[in-house]
Structures are given as C-alpha cells and as structure tokens.
C-alpha cells in the first residue's frame, strides 16, 4: 500500500500557498459536467457541498436523518478555535499550530495541522458573513474564551450552542445551493457500499455509492466523478457515548473494505465531564461542556470511609468538611489545575474511582463543585456563564448544581482515528476523499477542545474546494459516469446479500420458504428465548470495549477483549432477532447492519491498541507509564501513523507505517504540571 502524503515542497508556512498556486483548475463550463457525491451533512459535509455547489459542480448529498440540520455537529457546545488574535494576547497561526500538535501528543502530521491553523481565521469570517450569532462584547466586536490546552483566548462561541449555530450556517449555505439546483439532497438515505471502478489504465477509482432509502428500504445507485465521505466518527462502538444514537462508522468502514486504509483506530477521546451512567436502560451519555472547568473544582473525599458512606447514601457532599476533600487535579497538576487536557483529566478521575474514592450510587463519579465560584462571583454571574448547562443538568439528574456539586464521569466522545488521507484529504482509493471526524489527519492522539468544529469547517469550506478540483481536472475527459456496469451490480448484490443474511438469522432450515417463516408476532417457537435484539449485542460489545479497551489498556485486557468480541460476534450471527422486512422502514435492520461493521472495527481497534506499545494522548497502555502515572511515549519506535489494510472478514489486517517527520516542531514531553 502506497502511503504518499503528498506534502508540498517548501517551508511550512508556504506549503498551502504553493499548493494553491500550482494546483489544476476546472473551467466554469466544465464544472457543471462533473458530479460529486457528498455523504453526511455535518459541518464538514454541508460546508463542502455548499462550497462545491457554489463553484458550479453538481453535488448529490446524503444524510440518514430527516433533515441535514440534524447531523451531530449540532450538539457541540463550547466553541471553535481560530488564530485571530483579536484579544492581543499573543496568539498566531504558529501558536495555534504548536498547541494543536502538542495537544495531540506529537502524533499528527505537521503540514496538515499548519494548514488548519492557517485557514482558521477565514472560517470565522465566513461564519459571521452567514449570520452566525457569535457572542459579542458591548462594543459590538467578537468575544472569546479559553479552552483546555491553551494559554490564549481564541475560542469563538455562541452561548453553549456553538455547534448548532455553525451547522445552521452551513445548512443555510447548503439550502441556498439546493434552491439553485447545484446540490440535490437525499434525506433519510444511508450509504451502504462504495463502488470502485477501474479507469482505462486499470487504476481503481471511487465512482459511486449504493444507498438505502430508509423510508422504503429500497436500494438505490448513485454515480459520480468523486465521492466525499463526511460521516463522522465511530465512538458509538462503545454503545454509551456522547454521540447521537444514529451516528455510526459503517460508511467509513465499507470504504475500508473496498481498499481505503484506516488510520490510528485506537485513538479514542474520552471526555472527562459527562453525566454518569445511572442505569442499564441508559441509551447515551450527556456531555457537560469543558468550559465548566474554568470555574468548577473537581474533587473526591480524602477518606475511603466518607466515599463509602456517600455511596450508601448515608452522607452527602455537603457533609464532607473542606479539609477532607481531595482536589486531585489541583494536587497533581498545580500549573494547569482543573484545566488540564481531556485525556489527563479523564485518567485522573478513573484513578481515584478505581482506588475506591468514587462517589454516587455506583462509585463511578466525581464531584464538580461550583460553591467557590458562586462565593467569589455571585450566583448571577455563574448563572450568566453556565445557566443553560446547569439547567440541562437539573433536567436530567433532578439535582440543583447551585446547591450541591455536580457528579461527573468520563465518557467516550470523539475518535481521532479514521480513514487515512493525504495532504489533499484523499484516501488510498483515488477519487474518495474524507473530511471532518471521518478522517484521521489533524488531531494526533488527542484532540483539543473547540478544534473539531474548526477542522470540519476548514476541510469543507477551504480545503476540499481546492484539492477536489485538482483531482477533477483530469476527470473532464471521462464523460458522464453512469450507475451501471459489473461494479455497480456487484456492489448492490453485496449489500442485498448482507441485508438478506441479517434478516435470515434465526430462521430454521425447515421454515425457510418465505418471509413469514420468521418467528411471528405472538408466536411461541421453541428456543425463542435465546433470541435477542440488536441493542442487546451492541450493549454487550460496548461493555467489552469500555472495560478492556477503554481508558486504560494492557496486553492482557486487549487479549481478553479480542476473545470476547469473537464470542459476541458468533452469538450475534446465531441469535440476533430482527423483526419486520428489509423492504420497509426498519430501524432494527439499520442497527444490525451497523453493528455487523462494528464487530470488525472493534477487532481492528484492539489490534491497533495492541501493536502501539506506548502511551500517548487518549491511548493509555498501563505498561507504559511514568512513576506518577503519566503517559510514557516511545518516540523512537512509535512516531508513525498506523494505516491498516483490510484483508477479508476472517483475516488479520496488515499494518503500514507512515513515519511522522517533525521538521519545525521541537518534540518535548507533554507536561501540564
């Protein structure tokens, strides 16, 4: 596998300028003859489709929800970073670049991250022009705040709903192109497979997709000159995460099966401040914004007996005297205190809970206390800053954070890993591009807060419109791509076989003749009690991943994970029960299809975590830590991107290495003490 990152020559600060000056262009009359498929309508997908449509290309865009405005970018709370230096506090493109590389624990590609920092300012300009109502100060100028891992204020925000406002801006731009007819929207459609067709020279190229209409269940074919994947991350593999219920990794995974390398799957971000799990019926975890750590203090009891009394419900947090509280982040990291990066804060919470100091009925929670902030600033100020978050906490937990400390615990939030892409955001399949969380490129082993929105919009507004054009310049000679031929037939048949296979599970051989031979409503068939819903298996897989491949990983735990995943997968193919038909709206079938891919992806995450014999960012191997429990990188042996190539359902994948060369950054130990 050829992992050519195609980084342009020249000094770091001139690479992007040089690329743009020398890239190939498509003339306006030819643009409308070129078709592009964009999958996903989050920040990356919507902004890419809107920009490409405005340039004059013809775009088909797909989303699984009923409207493009529902994509999960909408749930981002805190803000978006940009090196505007409006605060005159010493920010610059270089500073944002360095912070992002350091935050990612020196596992990201320099040139990509530099470009991200370079275009960050234009994103804010674009969003303001679209009418995004960012917070402003009394002069009418834009306001900023700070986020973890930075010493400047460069985060732009719109209350606690920044993601929503940015997405609505991109959705507006997209809607305009839909009205102009350059973009065609396919809502409630899920991408099921990628179609790769060899060109005249025999070079494989992404030429279309097979999509399932989620209302009718029918399979549909779409052809194009290029395909852009902007389908987000795979955090939902853990079942309980801050992702939306329908967020899934299948679109990226089917591309991987078709030959696109998958990079760094073990880099998963665990967010320290989420509302703890409260019951086995729970379907998702809710995030409490990182901004709360600006004023909230995190603690657990110093004495085990206090923690035990709290767990039994005999004591409350207010019964614990000040001197009996352990503000463990302030104790361990005096320089950054409660504002250490996410991976560090998460591990510290786990360490305390594992040691028996956790609170809440399950013992898997720590306190986030605002009593000091209320005393210092007054309740009004705290309410102004965090009112909507406090309200949200109150609605979910039924406890008032103005009176008693919040309880929080880490949860799966974001996946830094994803499809391998080069400088042009092109995957290892020519003509297939990946943007936003779906690619692996910019965050290394840990993403900084407020950088996901920045990357999604950078890719969609300011990178893909250039790099895609460079690719498409050669494609004007191939003419219209039609959704026919053996490759489309094969891909559609493949999807159909997968769906039929899933629907057929549980059929006994003697009852195989028709659709109605499946266990029927109200019918009691022998052995039916062995059958379970898709969620049953998804929850079980999530528990295995969290337990053995979550915040702390060891050689043994990873081996156990692998065994358990295999057992579950076998059990799934024997006993999952999917009611209804394939040719109708059938959410159970959608979930089963996604879970099937998660089983393969889970194995790859575990393999990747096993080979990476070091700790870096979100990937913590207990064998590799310092005496005081901090991550221990091995730059000598592991300063590379692990890109995996699919070999078939039952075969181990093959790993290729893209070495990371740091020309401009000086590598140091990440220290937040």
């Amino acid at each position: 596998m050829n992992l050519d990152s195609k980084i342009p020559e020249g000094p770091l600060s001139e690479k992007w300028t040089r690329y743009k000056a020398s890239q190939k262009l498509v003339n306006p009359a030819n643009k409308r003859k070129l078709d592009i498929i964009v999958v996903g309508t989050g920040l990356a997908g919507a902004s890419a489709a809107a920009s490409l449509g405005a340039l004059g290309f013809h775009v088909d865009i797909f989303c699984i929800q009923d409207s493009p405005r529902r994509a999960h970018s909408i749930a981002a709370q805190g803000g978006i970073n940009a090196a505007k230096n409006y605060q005159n506090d010493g920010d610059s493109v270089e500073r944002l670049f360095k912070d992002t590389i350091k935050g990612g624990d020196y596992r990201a590609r320099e040139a990509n991250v530099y470009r991200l920092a370079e275009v960050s300012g234009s994103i804010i300009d674009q969003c303001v022009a679209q009418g995004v109502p960012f917070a402003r100060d009394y002069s009418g100028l834009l306001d900023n705040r700070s986020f973890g891992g930075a010493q400047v204020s460069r985060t732009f925000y719109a209350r606690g709903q920044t993601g929503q406002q940015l997405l609505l801006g991109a959705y507006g731009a997209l809607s305009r192109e839909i009205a102009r007819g350059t973009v065609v929207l396919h809502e409630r459609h899920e991408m099921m497979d990628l179609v790769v067709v060899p060109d005249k020279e025999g070079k494989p190229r992404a030429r279309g997709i097979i999509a399932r209409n989620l209302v009718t269940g029918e399979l549909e074919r779409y052809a194009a000159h290029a395909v852009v994947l902007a389908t987000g991350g795979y955090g939902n593999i853990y079942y309980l995460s801050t992702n939306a219920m329908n967020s899934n990794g299948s679109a990226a995974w089917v591309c991987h099966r078709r030959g696109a390398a998958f990079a760094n799957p073990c880099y998963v971000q665990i967010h320290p401040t989420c509302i703890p799990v409260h019951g086995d019926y729970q379907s998702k975890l809710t995030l409490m914004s990182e901004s709360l750590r600006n004023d909230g203090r995190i603690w657990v009891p110093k004495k085990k007996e206090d923690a035990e009394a709290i767990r039994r419900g005999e004591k409350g947090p207010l019964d614990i005297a000040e001197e009996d509280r352990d503000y463990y982040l302030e104790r361990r990291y005096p320089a950054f205190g409660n504002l250490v990066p996410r991976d560090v804060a998460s591990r510290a919470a786990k360490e305390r809970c594992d040691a028996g100091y956790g609170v809440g009925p399950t013992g898997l929670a720590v306190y986030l206390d605002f009593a000091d902030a209320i005393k210092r600033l007054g309740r009004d100020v705290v309410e102004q800053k965090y009112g909507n978050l406090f309200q949200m906490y109150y609605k979910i937990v039924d406890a008032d954070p103005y009176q008693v400390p919040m309880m929080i615990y880490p949860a799966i939030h974001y996946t830094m890993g994803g499809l391998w892409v080069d400088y042009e955001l092109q995957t290892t399949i020519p003509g297939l591009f990946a943007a936003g969380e779906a690619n692996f490129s910019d965050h290394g082993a840990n993403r900084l807060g407020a950088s996901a929105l920045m990357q999604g919009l950078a890719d969609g507004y300011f990178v893909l419109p250039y790099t895609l054009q460079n690719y498409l310049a050669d494609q004007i000679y191939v003419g219209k791509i039609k959704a026919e031929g053996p490759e489309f037939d094969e891909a559609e048949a493949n999807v159909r076989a997968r769906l039929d296979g899933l629907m057929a599970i549980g059929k006994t051989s003697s009852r195989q003749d028709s659709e109605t031979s499946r266990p029927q409503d109200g019918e009691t068939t022998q052995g039916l009690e062995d059958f379970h819903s898709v969620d049953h298996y998804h929850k079980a897989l999530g528990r295995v991943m969290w337990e053995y491949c979550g915040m702390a990983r060891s050689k043994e735990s990873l081996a156990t994970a692998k065994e358990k995943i295999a057992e579950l997968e076998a059990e799934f193919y024997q006993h999952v029960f999917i009611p209804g038909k394939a040719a109708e709206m059938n959410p159970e079938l959608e979930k089963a299809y996604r879970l099937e891919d998660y089983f393969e992806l889970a194995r790859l995450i575990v393999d990747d975590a096993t080979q990476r014999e070091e700790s870096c960012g979100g990937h913590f191997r207990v064998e590799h830590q310092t005496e005081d429990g901090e991550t221990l990188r091995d730059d000598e042996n592991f300063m590379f991107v692990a890109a995996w190539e699919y070999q078939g359902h039952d075969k181990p994948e093959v790993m290729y290495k893209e070495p990371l060369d740091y020309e401009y950054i000086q590598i140091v130990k990440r220290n937040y003490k």
Partner: protein
Amino acid sequence: MKFTLHIWRQENARAKGHFETYEIDNISADCSFLEMLDQLNEKLINDHIAHPVCFDNDCREGICGMCGLYINGRPHGNDDGVTTCQLHMRHFHDGDEIWVEPWRAKAFPVIKDLVVDRTAFDKIIQAGGYISATTGGVPDANNILVPKHKADQAMDAAACIGCGACVAACKNASAMLFVGAKVSHLALLPQGQPEAMDRVRKMVCKMDELGFGSCTNTYACEAECPKQIKRQNIARLNRQWIGQLFGRDRRE
C-alpha cells in the same frame, strides 16, 4: 413505575392508523421518555409481541430536533422547555395512562407509527432562510459590528431546533413561529439586511404553499416550544412582511 401506553401505530403513509395498548413495568423514574420506549421495544422484540414502535430520535440531548412526540395532548409532553428526549419519567405518576401520538399536521404526513415527514421545513428554508455568502470573499469578521443586544436577540431566535412542536401545538398547524424565528434571526443582523425583503416574501409564500395554516395569535406555539422561542418573533415577521408589501426595508 408502571404505565399503560396507548401508542399510535400506522404501517405506512397510506395505511390507516390506530391506537394500540401496551403495559410496561419496572421503569425507573430517572429514565427518559425515549428510554422508556426503548424498553418497550426491547420487550416487543424479545417476546415477539409486535414489531417495535418506530419513532424519530438522534442526539438525545435536546438539540438536534429529531424527536417529537405528542404525549397526553402536548408536544414533547408535560415538562416545559424540553424536547421529548429530555422528558423524564419522574414527571409522570406510577400507574399513569399515557397517550402517544405523532405530530398531526397536513404539512407533516405520517411515514410510519410516530415518524412524520418534516421536509416542508427544509423547503421553507430553501426558499430564502439564509444569507447568500458564497465561500471566500467575505470581509474580516470584526469589520461587521453587531450591537450586543441585537446579537443576543438574534441568538434567542436562532436557537430554534426545527422540531415542529409549534406546528403540532397550533390548532391551525401554522408554522409562523418557525418562520418568524428564522426571519428574526437574520433581520436583526446587519448581514441579513440586503436580502431581508425578498427573504420574508419567499419564505411566507412557501409556507402557505406547503399547506401550513394561518396564525390566529393563540400562542400555543410559544407555550410548547422546547427552546422557548418568543412570540415577538411572529410580530417581527409580520412587520417584515408588511414592510416588503410597501417595498420598504424594515430595520429591526
């Protein structure tokens, strides 16, 4: 907790729907309404009683606007300022009977069970609910000054999640609060001025064309809006509409 659920079941858009009654037990008060439905579906699947109930949902944190059930005669149920996914069972009493229906509006046809088609909202936005700012070629962000109170008011209106509760709550199935929120958000900002007159005309005409009813100012929409969007946005929409009738920019 134990509940008797009467749930609207409808095979597809063409089929006739009806209420079906289910009993459910052992529900925690801390569980959300949708998690209660998850447990019902789990039971329907495991015991092979019936096909699971279809309902739209996604983020489950009250922001995506995908969920929306008509619960005991109220959109998003009996708690104020929350979406269905943020409604918790502690707001019900043990043994309650709960009636669950889809949004009912001509412009939102039922697709299956509790799932409705809200693409009409997208079509209204496509008619003009945006600022035409082609990527690139825009001024520096701080070149556009927006007074703080205007930015705050715009943000209040922009908080709309497009769930459709306002339409479901309205006896006329009017979309005036939804349209008013978008028109207000953009009319309050200097960037929104050049297209303001065109925008309001196109959006209102599209709304009428799609079969939404008229506004008779009863404000059920405001009372049921999970994001508490204010009825003043409807007034602003009317002012903008009248302004464009007389061909005059109406500055907010």
